[in-house]
């Protein structure tokens, strides 16, 4: 081991990055390391950035390990494990003098340009001694775990579980590799190079660790979802895959469909028949669903759409992140009909809002969006257990009687929804303008007007059921930061770092319709700062449209990466 002169002191919030090509096993390290850290009682957070390819290229995963809760992406890298030569150039702008880089000689060469803290570890060499090059990753895991003062037993326990199916020998090799990692770390510690002082918290052990993806899928299950269709498209595929694994246990019909158009139409058909269907897709796929969305609108059939955003236009940057499809979700479909757009910012939001999406869709008979993005669906951190005690799966389907009319005109605009085969009535739905019985109507002076008004009324009515924005910070703010969806924790952490009493943050987890208090919140501020992960400030436009208020400043990012805490802190410092 060769170390240069440096020392990392009293860290209680460490950002570890593993970087290499697709196919080099970054995911294995990520999965093992986060779980090991959590089992040790540390808070963890993980996010990745990767290219649209199966092998090669250059990807990285960030793991934050901390004494306190962490849930946002930071630029800072405290410990870097470069798995190939491209890693250091790739991460150049995030490496500082304080970044400790641990790796093989050829992978850390070039590091000197940006950091003085390289630790040359002949990982492969040691690995060969243990049993083969493939053990390099495990050595690194042992090394990091030990640096973070994780007990060797915890690591070994994990390795035992993970490799049990591969037989005794493999298990032992892995354990040996891990121990070598521990040995290396001990050296470093003794040299007083690294002094990580993470606080353990037994509470963490009982907490959950799940991807945004999983949270959306689990929320859907808790919302009664029993039908999902999708056509694979990053970053939305995870939800489909997750539910395909639960198909049998939770009675869910899951189908990978021929195209997104079929997906939307099938999801609508499922609700018509009494199911609770959803589609999962990304911008390009959703664009294809626009016509179908309008079908949900006119037939007043509920439908839930998980729209996981990625940067466009067109194919754009398939594996990157952006909040660029808000306007598409808002205006897709021809003609007017009401809709609801939810935009989770946290893992628990993702769960509860996905659950709620099904309830709202059913209650108002409208399309409901769960608008996430690549960043959100692919991150995870530990969080308290999700509480289902307040959750019920409302079901608004009625049993029909003989003279049931699907589009009965009512005061609320909502007609009781029957389904075929349940009750004595017949249930028709129609994509034309129709009469109460769903038959084509060209009665322009009465029926058309009533039906348009019916749909307008539903919009009014569902405005009573809007999830309120969440105010973080002091109610007596002078400056109000405004954000929505996945940027929640980055903004929150940045604001906290600013340590300014007069700054608060208003986060929207329902972006349409807007909550009636929106205007009040904004008017109270002397200065409003909009933060959005897109090029044109789409949510700002929506705010302007519905409140008349133009935000004072905008922080926009559109290069496919999420906001880091540091860049937000810096930008906010300049603005406020």
């Amino acid at each position, binding site marked *: 081991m060769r170390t240069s002169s440096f020392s990392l002191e009293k860290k209680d919030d460490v950002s570890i990055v593993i970087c290499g090509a697709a196919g080099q096993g970054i995911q294995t390290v990520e999965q093992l390391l986060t779980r090991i850290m959590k089992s040790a009682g540390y808070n963890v957070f993980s996010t990745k950035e990767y290219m649209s390819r199966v092998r090669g290229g250059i990807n990285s995963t960030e793991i934050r390990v901390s004494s306190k809760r962490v849930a946002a992406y930071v630029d800072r890298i405290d410990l870097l494990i470069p798995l190939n030569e491209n890693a250091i150039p790739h991460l150049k702008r995030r490496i500082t003098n304080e970044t400790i880089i641990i790796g093989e000689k050829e992978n850390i060469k070039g590091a000197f340009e940006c950091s003085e803290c390289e630790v040359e570890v002949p990982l492969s060499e040691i690995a060969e001694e243990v049993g083969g090059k493939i053990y390099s990753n495990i050595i690194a895991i042992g090394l990091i775990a030990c640096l973070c003062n994780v007990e060797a037993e915890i690591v070994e326990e994990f390795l035992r579980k993970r490799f049990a199916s591969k037989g005794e020998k493999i298990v032992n090799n892995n354990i040996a590799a891990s121990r070598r990692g521990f040995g290396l770390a001990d050296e470093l510690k003794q040299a007083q190079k690294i002094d990580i002082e993470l606080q353990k918290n037994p509470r963490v052990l009982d907490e959950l660790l799940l991807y945004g993806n999983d949270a959306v899928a*689990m929320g859907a299950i808790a919302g009664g979802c029993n039908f999902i269709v999708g056509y694979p498209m990053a970053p939305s595929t995870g939800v489909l895959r997750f539910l395909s694994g639960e198909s049998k246990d939770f009675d869910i019909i899951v189908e990978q469909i021929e195209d997104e158009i079929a997906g939307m139409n099938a999801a609508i058909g499922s609700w018509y028949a009494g199911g609770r269907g959803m589609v999962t897709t990304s911008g390009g796929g959703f664009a294809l669903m626009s016509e179908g969305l309008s079908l949900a609108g006119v037939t007043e059939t509920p439908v839930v759409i998980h729209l996981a955003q990625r940067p466009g236009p067109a194919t754009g940057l398939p594996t990157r992140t952006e909040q660029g499809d808000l306007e598409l979700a808002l205006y897709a479909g021809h003609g007017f009909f009401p809709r609801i757009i939810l935009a989770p910012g946290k893992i628990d939001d993702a769960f509860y809002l996905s659950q709620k999406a099904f309830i709202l869709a059913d209650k108002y008979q409208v399309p409901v969006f769960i608008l996430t993005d690549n960043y959100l669906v692919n991150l995870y951190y530990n969080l308290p257990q999700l509480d289902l005690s307040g959750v019920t799966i409302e079901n608004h389907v009625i049993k029909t009687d003989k003279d049931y009319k699907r589009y009965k005109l009512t005061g609320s605009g909502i007609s009781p929804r029957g389904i075929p085969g349940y009750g004595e009535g017949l249930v028709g739905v*129609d994509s034309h303008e129709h009469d109460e019985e769903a038959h084509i109507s060209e009665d322009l002076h009465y029926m058309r007007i009533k039906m348009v008004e019916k749909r307008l009324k539903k919009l009014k009515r569902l405005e009573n059921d809007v999830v309120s924005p969440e105010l973080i910070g002091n109610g007596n703010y002078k400056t109000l930061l405004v954000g929505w969806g996945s940027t929640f924790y980055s903004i929150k952490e940045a604001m906290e770092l600013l340590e300014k009493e007069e700054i608060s943050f208003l986060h929207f987890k329902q972006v349409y319709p807007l909550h009636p208090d929106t205007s009040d919140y904004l008017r109270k501020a002397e200065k409003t700062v909009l933060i959005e992960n897109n090029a044109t400030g789409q949510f700002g436009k929506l705010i302007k449209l519905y409140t008349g208020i133009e935000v004072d400043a905008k922080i926009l990012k559109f290069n496919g990466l999420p906001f880091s805490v540091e860049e937000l802190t810096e930008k906010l410092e300049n603005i406020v």
Partner: protein
Amino acid sequence: MDKKAYDMGDIDYHWCPGCGNFLIMDILKETLTELDLKPEEIVLVTGIGQAAKMAHFTKMNFFNGLHGRSLPVAMAIKAVNPELKVIVESGDGCTYGEGGNHLIHAIRRNINVTNIIHNNMVFGLTKGQASPTSQLGYVTKMQNLGVFVEPFNPLTFAIALNASFVARAYCGDKEQTKEILKKAITHRGYAHIDVFQPCVTFNRLNTYQWFKENTYYLDDSHDPYDRVEAFRRATEKGKYPLGIFYINPKKTFEENLAAYRENDMPVYKRKRDLEKVSQKLLSFV
């Protein structure tokens, strides 16, 4: 059942007098009567076009969706509630034009629905443009030099995709069409019935007379289980054979679904157990 059960009473049909759609409607009603299917048990899923208006002229549950998109809707309905009898009806433009991709994959999945295509070889509702099945040389205001694109052959197509049931009928022949329809509706799996239907307003080429003169029935010697032979018969031109070309019994889409492999109860009737959801959440600890 009483055939009147499917009647809408005194309504204003949107079809032109003499249109073949009336015959198909009548045949459908009689078939359902004879099969003793109640209007409440049936869902008629249609697209958009003259044929697709069938949903408004017969009394039963219906989903009158978008042009070209009836099959995904039908698939979902049948999957969520396999106790329903799902019949799809639409035009040649809707099914073979806009909806082509869904047709391919509905056949591959073997969704358990009956797909009745009113093949008038023209776009009726939009006033007489060529459809995928329009014959070579057929002149319209849009195709003013005559159709030059290879007509779509629904039978070779369905057989190529190894469909479960493939037939062709002519609505001018009520009894035989009824027989074919009965077999199709009681068939387990996807059943494709292309029904020749004169459009008296726009298609002056393929008239009642023409269909009569240019069709004949497959006889008993035809073995519907022989795929290559079915294909060969389906390629016949000049005179078009009618009848059941191909039968290929296989598992249906629902039967294959994980949710139904060990449990027959329609998915829509099953209750979600929130306790189980909580349990599952614990697996993320």
